[in-house]
């Protein structure tokens, strides 16, 4: 039955090569922790992606309750935390996931760097990876304004001062992020929400796709 269904789709869409591209590749001995335990360092990239998936899923559920508006943002987060079934767990996953993804990303970057895995022919994938690093730090920065508590508000003010310190375009950059030259308020919250939920994830997906396609193309770097 399932086979028939698969054949029916495959005849029309030719799924076979697509999923063979994704799934059918060799895992060399030197990256397999089953043979060399020290190869666990190769897990960091996969775990970064795993936590990123957790972030995307938990974030999607958070937006079911969150209201990006200065009157209601804090109250909606408070309600989510105290009243909604498992709201505390979902928010906790998103909160701690932000920290864990940063740790894993850091470890993954260090692994690639110290193994010299960014050398020819993998320069482009390294650049895509560092851009992903920036995007994820950006997601961390825009994410913690959203609960609209004191920590969020005052830490964002400091962050905006840093952005404003950029030579030449500093003030424009601050206005772009905050929606005003001096106020951190309603407009700032909606902008950070839009950046956190739409702009940066869009960039993230594009870069992640490029990262994975390049890995499939080039294969993992050989043993040292």
């Amino acid at each position, binding site marked *: 039955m399932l086979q028939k269904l698969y054949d029916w789709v495959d005849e029309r869409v030719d799924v076979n090569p697509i999923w063979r591209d994704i799934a059918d590749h060799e895992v060399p001995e030197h990256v397999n922790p089953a043979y060399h335990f020290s190869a666990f360092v190769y897990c960091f990239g996969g775990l970064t992606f795993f936590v990123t998936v957790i972030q995307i899923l938990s974030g999607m559920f958070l937006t079911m309750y969150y209201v990006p508006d200065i009157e209601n943002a804090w109250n909606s987060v408070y309600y989510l935390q*105290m009243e909604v079934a498992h709201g505390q767990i979902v928010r906790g996953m998103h909160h701690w996931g932000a920290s864990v993804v940063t740790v894993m990303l850091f470890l993954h970057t260090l692994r690639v760097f110290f193994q010299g895995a960014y050398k020819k022919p993998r320069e482009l994938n390294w650049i895509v990876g560092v851009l992903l690093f920036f995007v994820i730090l950006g997601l961390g920065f825009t994410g913690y304004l959203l609960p609209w508590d004191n920590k969020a508000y005052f830490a964002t*003010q400091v*962050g905006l001062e840093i952005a404003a310190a950029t030579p030449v375009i500093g003030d424009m950059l601050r206005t772009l992020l905050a929606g005003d030259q001096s106020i951190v308020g309603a407009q700032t919250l909606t902008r950070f929400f839009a950046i956190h939920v739409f702009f940066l994830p869009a960039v993230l997906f594009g870069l992640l796709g490029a990262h994975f396609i390049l890995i499939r193309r080039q294969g993992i770097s050989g043993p040292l």
Partner: protein
Amino acid sequence: MHRGKGMKFVGDSRIKANKERNVPKDYSEYPGRTEAFWPNFLLREWLTGSVFLIGFLILVAAHPSPLEQQADPTNAGYIPLPDWYFLFIYQLLKYQFAGGEYIVIGAIVIPGLAFTALLLAPFLDRAPGRTVNKRPIAVGLMLIGVASTIWLTYESVSEVDYQERGEKYAVDVEAQESEVEIDTEAAGYAAYEANCMQCHGEQLQGSGNNPSLLKTEKSVDEIKDIAVNGIGSMPADMFSGSDEERQQLAEFIKETAKANSGGGSGE
């Protein structure tokens, strides 16, 4: 891409009609103990992922994510602190030649150089050798970068008393849950509104360093004294008005506190 005679397609599509069999590649000719990703290695990855997920969920269950009091732009006593992964830059900006007038150096030049070097690492470190001892400069610079980031973060964390912050800035759940009755008709309310509300809040709930007045155990005379002479970090002469208004104000605060603690303790 296949072209030419004899090719059959499905309908008017570009999908070939005569298909290759769905057989996994043979990896036996690759060097070492190579394993197929699907399904052998993927199963191992799932197991690792499950163990990781359990650990992660234990962390989440054991430490509920914090939520501080609602943002209050007028809260002058609040000391901002970013999440731990931005502490290194927050700390850097505290130094004399990286912050204040020199903020361009601390906020843009130093991190800019570091991250640009990271981005362009493959073009700065071009020699073919991959091992650590074949590229001492790149590895050395990275170690300096990592060590200074960790050191800056440590310096920043060591100055923060997270427990004290937690107690001071956390949401007072009890006050949030219990309906506080403020008698806005009371004689002392006008005086409260004029003299105290800006720091102690509309509901007498306090904010940041300014304590809540709802549970005060001070007497009417003590409150009168504090309104004029201040206490702790509260400056003197916050109150301006007649002695009669001051008496009404103190009585209003005392009665609200009494009503609140009487009604609140039973719940």
